[in-house]
């Protein structure tokens, strides 16, 4: 039998983490599926389990100084119900897993699991989300891209918890999200694309785009985005080959059970093209 902790408050959880290496258990949908596979096989965890998904402080969603603060243990269903979460993000979440899994799975878990196919990540990268990390000694804040280190590797130390995700309170004129999977419900992502833009008088005033499942971590290229911002729709058509070449260099997908590198790359480039050529329509 594994040992377990079930603290009532965040400070108590941090105190436990300071003294014990723990496996942090939030919704459990990734960890249990990984560890508990097979009929009547009891899940075995190396470290004591630290249950955190009942802690109120980690479930709050609030608007402060025009930023949305999302508690790491807010479930995907709770995000869908919240009036503070932008429709552009809800479009993403609605395509994740299934309702019973969304009732358990947390945003913090999706981030910390650090899968290249994690469906919340392209949006969070596109919006330059920040993550708040707490330990008993204090709080630090990191941009999401620095928190995700590599597939299945996040930037948490043993004594730290991801406590909040901070997003700018922003909506865009154009929201173009495509998730490619084998079917619509319950599918894992082969490739995903999120393009967001604001347009005024025939030119682009703001733009960000991120790609999932096509490299070890989410792909985003600010330099290329800067090239596009300020351009008229006509100019964008002209510089399109340069832009697509740039993304072609940085998209480095793999072959795996879900798809092939060739398909992933081809479809990602086409999605970028569709998004950019669609800006003026």
């Amino acid at each position: 039998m594994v040992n377990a902790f079930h603290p009532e408050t965040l400070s108590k959880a941090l105190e436990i983490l300071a003294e014990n290496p723990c496996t942090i258990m939030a919704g459990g949908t990734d960890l249990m599926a990984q560890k508990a596979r097979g009929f009547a096989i009891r899940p075995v965890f190396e470290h004591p389990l630290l249950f955190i998904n009942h802690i109120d402080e980690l479930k709050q969603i609030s608007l402060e100084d025009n930023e949305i603060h999302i508690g790491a243990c807010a479930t995907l269903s709770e995000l869908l119900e919240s009036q503070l979460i932008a429709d552009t993000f809800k479009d993403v979440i609605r395509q994740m897993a299934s309702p019973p899994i969304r009732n358990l799975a947390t945003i913090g878990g999706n981030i910390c699991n650090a899968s290249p196919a994690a469906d919340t990540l392209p949006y969070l990268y596109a919006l330059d989300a920040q993550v708040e990390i707490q330990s008993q000694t204090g709080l630090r804040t990191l941009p999401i891209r620095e928190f995700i280190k590599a597939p299945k590797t996040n930037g948490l130390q043993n004594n730290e918890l991801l406590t909040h995700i901070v997003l700018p309170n922003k909506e865009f004129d154009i929201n173009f999200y495509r998730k490619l999977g084998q079917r619509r419900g319950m599918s894992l992502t082969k490739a995903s694309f999120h393009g967001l833009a604001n347009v005024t008088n025939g030119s682009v005033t703001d733009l960000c785009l991120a790609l999932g499942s096509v490299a070890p971590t989410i792909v985003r290229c600010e330099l290329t985005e800067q090239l596009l911002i300020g351009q008229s729709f006509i100019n964008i058509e002209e510089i399109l080959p340069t832009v697509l070449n740039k993304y072609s260099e940085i998209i480095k997908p793999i072959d795996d059970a879900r798809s092939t590198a060739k398909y992933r790359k081809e479809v990602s480039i086409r999605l970028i093209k569709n998004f950019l050529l669609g800006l003026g329509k």
Partner: protein
Amino acid sequence: MKIEFYLNNDPHEIEVDPAYRLLDLLREDFGLTSVKEGCGEGECGACIVLMNGLAVNSCLVPCGSILGKHIITLEEFRKTDRYEAIEKGFMDAGAVQCGFCTPGFVMATESLLNQNPDPTDEEIREGLSGNLCRCTGYNLIIKGVKLAMEKGAGLW
């Protein structure tokens, strides 16, 4: 680990491995065999129960996270008027063939209608997207849910 929780409206205090799956606790320790194990990884929905009124895959829930929670399985839900409406709807539509997936579909239907008493066809499909059925081809189940909504009008 000692945990207190409510199962089918009765309070329980048990000693349990915190990583033990809720699915195993319900089937092996409480004999509640309406809860089926299909895939064991959250894909099929055969093990869906209600936790605080919401559908969850019991194969993905570690017992350490059910402290203070209210778990309802089909054994309890079948005593309600809502269940009767769903049962009648499923029977009249021919939504049950082998029956293995049916308890999960019934619990997912309850969770769906509880949140959205008047779903569109598309919303029903979305609401039941976490349940697999290898017999019916789903259309009869969607029809069953719609008949249940008619028969149970006002219950949700």
